[in-house]
């Protein structure tokens, strides 16, 4: 399963030119190394403050562009990871091991990514057992594509 793990912003991280402290960077760096060594990271990136971004509002046929910065810092995204793990609980366990991404109180949100299996048929228990029995009788032949 894939999860997007979202680090929410804080008023401090939204300030222009704001940089995390050296100790925080060091600890987060160590955590990222641990994640990579565990083989579960697919992607990760940090985002500039919303002052460098924009929003587009959709209403019927109209499109309205609004420049950043945006208020409600804790609803904004400061960074994200994409992880490959087997369950939501595994993602939660890893997030619990994460150092606080900000100097003040903060939040990390975990969201599951839609994947093929969500749209494709799933084998029933009966089908699995049927395949187990059939497989036991067949020789091996590999085709590559």
């Amino acid at each position, binding site marked *: 399963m894939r999860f997007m793990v979202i680090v929410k912003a804080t008023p401090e991280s939204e300030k222009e030119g704001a940089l995390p402290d050296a100790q925080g960077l060091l600890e987060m760096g160590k955590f990222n190394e641990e994640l*990579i*060594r*565990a*083989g*579960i990271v*697919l*992607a990760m990136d940090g985002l500039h403050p919303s002052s460098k971004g924009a929003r587009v509002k959709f209403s019927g046929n109209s499109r309205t562009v609004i420049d950043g910065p945006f208020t409600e810092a804790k609803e904004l995204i400061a960074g994200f990871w*994409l992880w*490959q*793990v*087997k*369950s*939501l*609980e*595994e993602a*939660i*366990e*890893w997030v619990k091991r994460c150092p606080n991404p900000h100097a003040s109180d903060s939040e990390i949100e975990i969201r599951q990514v839609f994947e*093929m*299996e969500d*749209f*494709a*048929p799933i*084998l029933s228990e009966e089908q*699995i057992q049927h*395949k*187990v029995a*059939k*497989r*036991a009788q*067949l020789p*091996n*032949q*590999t*085709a*590559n*594509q």
Partner: protein
Amino acid sequence: MSATDPHHATQQATDQALHRTIEAVWRIESARVIAGLTRLTRDVGLAEDLAQEALLAALEQWPRSGVPDNPAAWLTATAKHRAIDLFRRNAVARRKHEELARELEALEQTSPDLDSTLDNTISDDLLRLVFIACHPILPADSRAALTLRLLGGLTTDEIARAFLTPEPTIAQRIVRAKRTLADKHIPFEIPRGPELAARLSSVLEVIYLIFNEGYSATTGDDLMRPALCEDALRLGRILAELTPTEPEVHGLVALMEIQASRTRARITSTGEPVLLFDQNRAQWDQLLIHRGLTAIERAHKINAVRGPYLLQAEIAACHARARTPSETDWPRIVILYTELAQITPSPVIELNRAVAVSMAQGPQAGLTLVDALASEPSLARYHLLPSVRADLLYKLGRRPEARSDFVRAAALTLNTRERDLLLARAASCETDPINS
């Protein structure tokens, strides 16, 4: 308290959530715990048994006490207690392992965190565990099961379901594998010098076997099992961090990332295979392709002769970079297959090279190479040989010969969908305007 009692239902939900959390903790920590215990006990089978007992203890106690702050330390400490109990109870073992028991008791006095703060030790132990689980003295199937169990944190049942094999068969494989490792006194160490290349090759073989088990349909109604591909990819990525200076490891990871990138495009919604050139490339996972190309770059930075996995990855990368089949860099693929054929010569690679040559230089050039393989005994029952030959003959306008080769190929394949496709192509040879 009935089953429909709301309090009962809530308790069940809580128990299930905690159970999943413990499973997650196991997946994250078990390899390290087992690796550390193996270093202490010098017996990987015993280490795994002890770790399993610690897991049972966790399943029993954590619902009441909660998940500890440092679950790995808790599991390791619990397992060590069991080991000491075991040595105390078994008088014979105690005489043999007296020193070991004393060592363990001494370690009991130290902080449980001490072992786990030494990063290098953990990485080294994990690598030792990888090498022992993939030891060439074990049959390939056993290596795969043992690796998934010790390093992947999968249960026997999960492994059985992933390989579509009965659970007792997998359980037996693992038991026998552990016994072989103990009987042959296989050491818990990182191979050095000339031995390293061969041993690493064995590890890569296991990981790729697991990947292919999930990736390649071997019979007509087999479905892909992407979860197994993910397990293999995770193991590959873990190994890449343990052995960052080994280009073939990055090569294998690259190959798996790129092959996995095609997952969505490779089968129809009803589970039928789609050939590479018929796939909708908009469904290829660009994130995985990017990761595969990055892994290839990582391998290139290590100055070494390209090995077979890296070469196969580079071939896969050629396809991955082409937005449409017509944009494929066939001359480059020919060079790569030629290099591959030199280091790992095989008739199948020669056949693939012939296909690439036909795309780069025209069907006649390819046909010449294919005809040179006609008497290859290992290809006698390989349906792709007549299938490729038929396709080249078709392109050269030699329809009656193409037809008979398509029919021959259809008779050789076990895959029902593929057989239908080949018979359809045979039929098209007759109805083609050139023949009328």
